[in-house]
């Protein structure tokens, strides 16, 4: 907390990083107080992209909200869809058929890979690399986005999940294409890591910068790769085993120190684990329905979908952390209360703790390593 009164007459420099700044990942603002290049206090300011997503959703039928969840974290709309579909399915007690559940896992893991690629690319941009890692990441992301376009019709705003299933079946050719991507991805990761992981400049910049102790991370509700980089083993895919994640054999990579480098490397390892899940899912995916019979009539008439009075909290391990949807139904077509527990927002709680005492350049990469998307932070 900054006591601005005490700053008057001091030699401190107050700088607004953002809302217009190349590396605040959108319209985020950091109010930074500097002494030389050292950060004395930092205050995150948000809300520039606020559109009251929750209020919009409370005025719409459940099915129409799906399209709006795409816009939360626009880098991985598949994960957002997944969380929302899960919450509504909990509320209305519908289950996705086997094939649909497999497709969901495949799409969610592809989205995770896309997200981590983008994060690492832009983290390197924040570090000052001139777009090379970003464009290598884009090259691979492009292939995955083509898959998304093929299955859902859109590259980023997928709107692919439905309650009790998915929107469209996936052809054998597309599955083969995904297999090809999965098979070719490790080679790319090798190249990517050769460019980055051992680079002395990157290590100098990232190691022991922005250290987040495990107990603070837990207390502050930090989730996702940031939490795991601090060495806390908590992955909802393992803990909740939602979807079909208990059927796949994968590990949870953990960091040691909880600095920026750990957060970077944990994500690289997570991509490798995602590839394992994808391989297994693609090998095992059965034939069958893609939509629960119970949910079928609501496709054509979304307003007939009236879950019984009650509430549900569905949460998934989105690439950014725990993405939770809290829904209260009053028996009408619209939710009475709809809340998104946004990992991008809550992971910002500890931004100041990580940044104070570091240099200006570190604040940028610490923010980058938290991985926020303003669409989700501000909602």
């Amino acid at each position: 907390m900054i006591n601005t009164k005490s700053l008057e007459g001091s030699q401190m420099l107050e700088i607004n990083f953002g809302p217009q700044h190349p590396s605040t990942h959108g319209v985020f603002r950091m109010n930074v107080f500097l002494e030389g290049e050292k950060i004395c206090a930092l205050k995150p300011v948000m809300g520039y992209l606020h559109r009251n997503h929750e209020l919009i959703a409370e005025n719409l039928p459940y099915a129409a909200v799906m399209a709006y969840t795409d816009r939360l974290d626009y880098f991985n709309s598949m994960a957002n869809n997944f969380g929302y579909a899960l919450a509504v399915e909990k509320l209305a007690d519908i289950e996705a058929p086997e094939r649909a559940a497999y497709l969901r896992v495949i799409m969610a893991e592809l989205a995770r890979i896309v997200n981590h690629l983008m994060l690492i690319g832009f983290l390197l941009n924040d570090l000052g690399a001139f777009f090379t890692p970003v464009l290598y990441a884009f090259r691979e992301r492009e292939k995955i986005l083509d898959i998304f376009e093929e299955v859902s019709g859109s590259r980023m705003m997928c709107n692919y999940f439905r309650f009790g299933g998915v929107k469209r079946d996936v052809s054998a050719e597309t599955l083969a294409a995904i297999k090809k991507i999965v098979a070719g991805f490790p080679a790319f990761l090798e190249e990517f890591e050769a460019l980055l992981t051992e680079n002395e400049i990157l290590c100098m910049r990232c190691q022991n910068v922005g250290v987040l102790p495990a107990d603070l991370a837990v207390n502050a509700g930090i989730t996702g790769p940031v939490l795991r980089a601090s060495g806390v083993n908590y992955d909802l895919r393992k803990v909740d085993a939602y979807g079909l994640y208990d059927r796949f054999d994968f590990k949870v990579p953990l960091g040691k120190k909880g600095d920026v480098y750990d957060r970077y490397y944990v994500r690289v390892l997570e991509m490798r684990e995602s590839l394992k899940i994808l391989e297994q899912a693609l090998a095992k995916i059965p034939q069958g329905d893609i939509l629960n019979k119970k949910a079928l009539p609501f496709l054509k008439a979304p307003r007939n979908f009236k879950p019984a009075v009650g509430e549900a909290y569905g949460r998934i391990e989105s690439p950014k952390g725990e993405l939770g949807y809290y829904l209260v139904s009053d028996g009408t077509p619209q939710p009475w209360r709809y809340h998104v527990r946004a990992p991008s927002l809550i992971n910002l709680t500890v931004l100041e703790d990580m940044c104070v005492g570091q240099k200006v350049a570190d604040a940028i990469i610490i923010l980058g390593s938290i991985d926020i998307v303003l669409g989700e932070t501000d909602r």
Partner: protein
Amino acid sequence: MKEIEFFVDLIFVNAKGWCLDLLGHFLPDWTVVLVSIIISAVVIMVLGPLVMMYLTLLERKVIGRIQNRYGPNRVGKWGLLQPIADGIKMFTKEDIVPAQADKIIHFLAPVIIVIPALMVFLVVPFGERMTAVNLNIGLLYFIAVSSITTIPIFMGSWASRNKYSLLGGMRTAAQMISYEVPMTLSVVPVIMMSQSLSTNTIVMTQAGDMDLHWFVFTPWGLVGFVIFFLCAVAECNRPPFDLPEAESELVAGFHTEYSGMKFALFYMAEYMNAFTLCGIATTLFLGGWQGPLFPSWLWFFGKTFLLICVMIWFRGTFPRFRVDQLMGFAWKFLLPLTLINIPVAALWFFVPEQLAWIYSVPILAVSLWGLVKLNRSFVPEKRIYPLAD
């Protein structure tokens, strides 16, 4: 055969000579001297911006290829007219001066920054007998003039009244002064070997027809070259030492508040500095215009552009240093290394060559190893990541 080679080699020198001869028939002697000066000046004034324009294109193309893109390819064949289009754009852009800025200094900064960048061209030996002025203190002149660049950058950053600019300016001052020291010291062995400060003489001492006597092929020369080149990269604010600009941190650093042609002048100075620094690095360590078969100026430009490509390659690969690490690198790593390099070179002068190789390589290797050991913070930690269930 030899004649043709000689003719091509001296084509520019002879062209100037003929012009002056022709004028000598009509004009008095003092005007001929004046015209000679003007010709050199005009050539440099044209060469500088031209080099800058096509360096930007080269940079964009090479980085594009590194990133699996085409780079500019729409304006003209292979985008060759792109720099001209950029120039037109820069000229026609609105010139915005912040309301609170110190207007005079804000205006002067981009003007002044170009002057030292052009002035250092004077002592660069572009080819055999192609030095504009063969100063006997050429190297000293180069070091002195090129270090002026700090002042206009700081002027611009201070006058902008922008906090990003201010931080950028402070970084520039710190960085340029720090890197000036190892850069100057890394040149000392070359001066000792060639016993001259004249750039021409330095090139001449590296003469050799097929057996290359370039200084870079000696242990002290290699170390000196690497240090000089790294300092040169830092001097002209190029990645990974581009802290004064630091796009992701300080928006655009010292030129945040500049637009239009003033902005272009900052860029022009940066690229011309890059060119001259690479040219001097070539002169000092890579034998300047010395080289077999091809004309001397082609050798010079070839070597210089090779070094520039390395700079671009750096830009396409590396993330940026942090400000304290940058300083640490200069003071804790480069400076001690240059200080060890000077006595090694001094001994080299007196000891027969085979013996010199035997002692200088281990000395330099051990000191390098020792410096790495002493600078623990530069060495990455090895980490093992557990995979939990």
